[in-house]
């Protein structure tokens, strides 16, 4: 929440969610939540390229950076995370966060990519090259399963503009809930409750159902009114 306040983002639920979830992760050991969460990110074919990374140092978080790489359409991304793994691999991970909405822009017949993930990838790839890091774009959504068509549309937009295939992974808020649902840590417990409240959990059973109330109320039509109705065209027809 602190990050959302600092960036004047409190009007957007998506941004509050980003701030609350990644804000909590920022203050914890990366191996506690961030790394196991990122490990669940998958490509449309189901493979999980970040499944076995271990970090050497505290990752660096940059919330809502503007990306203005030369030759690319400018864009704001939700989060950049710089991670160095214990085997010396350096990652630049861009997280595009969604809650209830889909991509904010789609492909257009223009000189540059306009699909939201495609134009973010263009900026990310250039930035990562300058920093000698491996670019990874994570599409974090509320979905239960991988939005393959959305990712394929971004790849097609990139291909049409003569870019190589992007490293776009999908991750769900529901993965985070599943990861922290039984956490004893108070902040993580609260975060799990927030995700549950926002309907970003997976099925974990039915709540206890109360005995249904017997409703005594009945709507009845008075005898006068019934007599009136019988004069009406509908009732005449029925008769």
């Amino acid at each position, binding site marked *: 929440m602190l990050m959302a306040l600092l960036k004047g983002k409190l009007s957007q639920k998506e941004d509050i969610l980003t701030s609350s979830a990644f804000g909590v992760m920022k203050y914890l050991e990366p191996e506690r939540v961030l790394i196991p969460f990122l490990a669940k990110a998958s490509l449309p074919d189901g493979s999980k390229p970040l499944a076995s990374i271990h970090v050497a140092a505290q990752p660096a978080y940059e919330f809502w950076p503007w990306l203005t790489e030369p030759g690319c359409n400018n864009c704001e991304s939700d989060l950049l995370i710089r991670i160095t793994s214990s085997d010396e691999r350096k990652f630049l991970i861009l997280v595009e966060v969604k809650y209830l909405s889909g991509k904010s822009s789609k492909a257009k017949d223009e000189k540059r990519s306009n699909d939201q993930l495609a134009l973010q990838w263009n900026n990310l790839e250039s930035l990562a090259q300058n920093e000698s890091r491996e670019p990874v774009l994570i599409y974090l959504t509320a979905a*239960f399963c991988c939005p393959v068509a959305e990712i394929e549309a971004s790849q097609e937009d990139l291909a049409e503009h003569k870019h190589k295939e992007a490293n776009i992974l999908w991750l769900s808020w529901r993965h985070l809930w599943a990861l922290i649902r039984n956490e004893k840590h108070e902040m993580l417990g609260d975060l799990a409750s927030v995700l549950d409240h926002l309907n970003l959990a997976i*099925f974990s059973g039915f709540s206890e159902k109360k005995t249904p109330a017997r409703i005594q*109320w009945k709507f009845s039509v008075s005898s006068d009114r019934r007599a009136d109705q019988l004069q009406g065209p509908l009732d005449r027809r029925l008769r």
Partner: protein
Amino acid sequence: MSEDGKNIVAMLKELRTLCEEIHRLLGTADGQIQELDKGWKPIPANVFSGLSYMLSPRQSRRQSPRHWIPQDFSRFYENDNLGHIRAFVSVILDDWEKESVLGEPLLTAGWFDCDPGNTIELRKIYSYARWHLKMPGRRDDGQLVSADSKAWPKEPLRFLHVSTLGVPLMSVRDDKELKSKIINPLIQGIKEAQGR
């Protein structure tokens, strides 16, 4: 405030909570099916079909107040590698026509094996999600039951074979039980049937 008034509010809240839980269950089923076989995709046209079914202006029968509350919620799936198969997972809560058919809500799943040139049209398949209730020798203990379309000689059916399984909804208490009781037997059953 009257007791009746409070009870109505409480009853609707319970109903809304139940809908949220069913949404999670069916969504979790989507994820589990894809985990087991990436080829399966939910058919977008009938995402949580109950309400769209009820509100469709063309379905005048559905405008009867007895039909305002959906009787089932379902998901259908297709697989590019198995174009003639339509699989489903459905929660059956009630039966508008015959109350005796259902003693308690069921979680059911199954698949229709169609003539490859005549797969079931989307608009036709909503009621097919309740097929478990029609199965000869139906059992609600999680065992797969299969039947040939000849079992329903009077109905113009668009499939050759059907297999379903069902368990009491309340016996599925979390994602692990959903997987072991419904999703694993469904995907395994389809694989075995294709291997025969």
